């Protein structure tokens, strides 16, 4: 059984006009245990919404998402929170570190709501991402590259089976982006976590063997919902 299995997933949002717009319409998608897959899609194609649905942050309108054998879509919010805490690590474009906490404390928070804080593991992860000398620094005292390394360590702190990465290199320059991506992939592999990464950056996507265009499996992203400049000519 795949680690992640999605069937007939739909999600729509009410546009400012009040009209319902279908953003995600995925008939089928799956990810194997330990696999590393990149999703390519333009801005506004529903990548973030898709990841939020998988993480249980958003409630699907229809269809099923199974994560690690449990049906996320069948759970009420507290259940989805618990499943997310237990099996999913999330890396964001904006890192989303907590400013009031040190690097080490941020990593510890990654476990606080799941298995509970495992001090040695947190220290080992920070060491692994090369920040053993910056453990007691606050996010503001770190460079953006270092901040994203903390975020990677935090995402893996709870030993998740699935790591979701939403344009994790979007705020980094070329050099640091490449470094960060390499680190994410290595650390996920070392920890036996599958990686589902979304990006619109071709340089990043080029590093993956397994790249899916979101328009291939998200019917909602195919054409009609994209902003005009991305639709190209459009149907006549």
């Amino acid at each position: 059984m795949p680690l992640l299995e999605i069937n007939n997933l739909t999600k729509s949002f009410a546009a400012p006009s009040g009209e319902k717009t279908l953003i995600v319409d995925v008939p089928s998608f799956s990810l194997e245990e330990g696999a590393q897959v990149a999703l390519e899609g333009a801005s506004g194609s529903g990548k973030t919404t898709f990841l939020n649905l998988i993480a249980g942050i958003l409630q699907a309108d229809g269809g099923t998402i199974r994560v690690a054998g449990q049906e996320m879509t069948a759970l009420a919010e507290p259940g989805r929170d618990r499943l997310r805490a237990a099996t999913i690590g999330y890396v964001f474009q904006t890192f989303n570190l907590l400013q009031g906490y040190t690097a080490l404390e941020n990593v510890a928070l990654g476990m606080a709501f799941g298995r509970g804080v495992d001090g040695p593991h947190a220290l080992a992860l920070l060491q692994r991402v090369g920040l053993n000398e910056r453990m007691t620094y606050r996010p503001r005292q770190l460079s953006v590259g270092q901040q994203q390394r903390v975020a990677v360590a935090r995402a893996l702190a709870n030993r998740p089976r699935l790591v979701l990465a939403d344009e994790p290199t979007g705020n980094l320059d070329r050099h640091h982006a490449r470094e960060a991506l390499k680190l994410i992939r290595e650390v996920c592999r070392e920890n036996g976590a599958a990686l589902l990464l979304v990006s619109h950056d071709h340089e990043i996507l080029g590093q993956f063997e397994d790249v899916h265009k979101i328009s291939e499996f998200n019917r909602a992203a195919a054409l009609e919902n994209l902003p005009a400049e991305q639709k190209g000519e459009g149907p006549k």
Partner: protein
Amino acid sequence: MSATPSIYSSPHVPRCGIGFMMMRSMRQHALSSIIAIVCVALATGLTISVVSINAQAYKVFTGGQAGFDAVLGARGSQLQLVLNAVFHLETSPGNIPWSLYQAVKKDPRVELAVPYALGDNYNGFRIVGTTEELFTKFEFEKGRKFAIAPGGRMFDTTRREAVIGSFVSRQTGLKVGSNFNPFHGLNFDPKAKHDEVYVVTGVMEPSNTPSDRVIWIPIEGVYRMEGHVLRGADKEFKPAAGEEIPDEHKEVSAVMLKLRSPQGGFSLEQMINKQGKVATLAFPIGRTMADLFDKMGWVNRILGLVAYLVAVVAAGTILASIYNTINERRREFAILRALGARRRRVFTAIVAEASTIAAIGAAAGLLVYLGILGVAAKIVQAQTGVVLDLMFPHQILYLAPLGMIALGALAGIVPAIKAYGTDVAENISPTS
């Protein structure tokens, strides 16, 4: 020699419980947290002070401090009589003839009668002429008589000698052997100095009663003070030096009475106040003071109301200080939720933060109370000689802090509901 510790001694990894996260949050919003804590401390201190000081004042001014059961004095207000003779405040309502003193002294219902003659002061401290019985027979508390500190002795009734209260000694610097000139009147007037020189023969041990603020001299001394006129008989009388004063010319300002039984007091009261026309008996002293407190009850109710309003304002400060941070913290809540924290946890953390601010404030409030009471006690002692107790046990000492914590928790619910409603997807990415 000794094993070198590793260069990087591992930093402590917190367990990230509610308490830890709360302290981090309070540190991040230190200024508003501190302002709220100060408000709560002031509110708690104020509430405790109002209630405790009032309870103590009621107890000491209506309770045992007097030692005497009744005061006999000039016809007039019982309250004025008590304030004047027992607490050495207020003006004297006038004098009564010596014969009345002797009559009550012989009355079988009276156990002890001590005369007071007023009229002079030293630097504002009252000089009271009295008899030795005040020191030899009178008990201001059960089993406790006024005592003279070692090195001093009782005044000789035939000399210009004085025994002074401990507070007087401390404030004026008068000691055994010091000389002083009395001043005429109950209020200090530097121009009204008497020529007589008195010598201090004794300083009283502190009794924590109004008597600590008094200078005691022989009652004859008051009669013989230059410029004093005795109006006990129909015509005025000024004793010449060495001349014996006939009893009919003598007057007293008040007679302090210790009664054999309360029933005796009631029948004396009946006789003096209802049937008589010359004098007033204030009895029981505690009842007279309680009447005063009851009349002043509205002041206390207003003070209490103010204190409770301040407590509500303090709770409002907690509410506002946390509420104002919720918007800037939404992203933080969203991140925590994305890490798997449940809504309930966010809610609890906010209520816990509000309660903690209230708890720290309430604890600090106890210190504020000690500060206020310390100042109040000094003022009350200077004004009345009565000493308030810093450790006075009163249920408000724990009711006010507990109430404040409950109010704080309640105040936390409003911002907690706001935090609870944070939408993760909307707040996880910066809106730009």
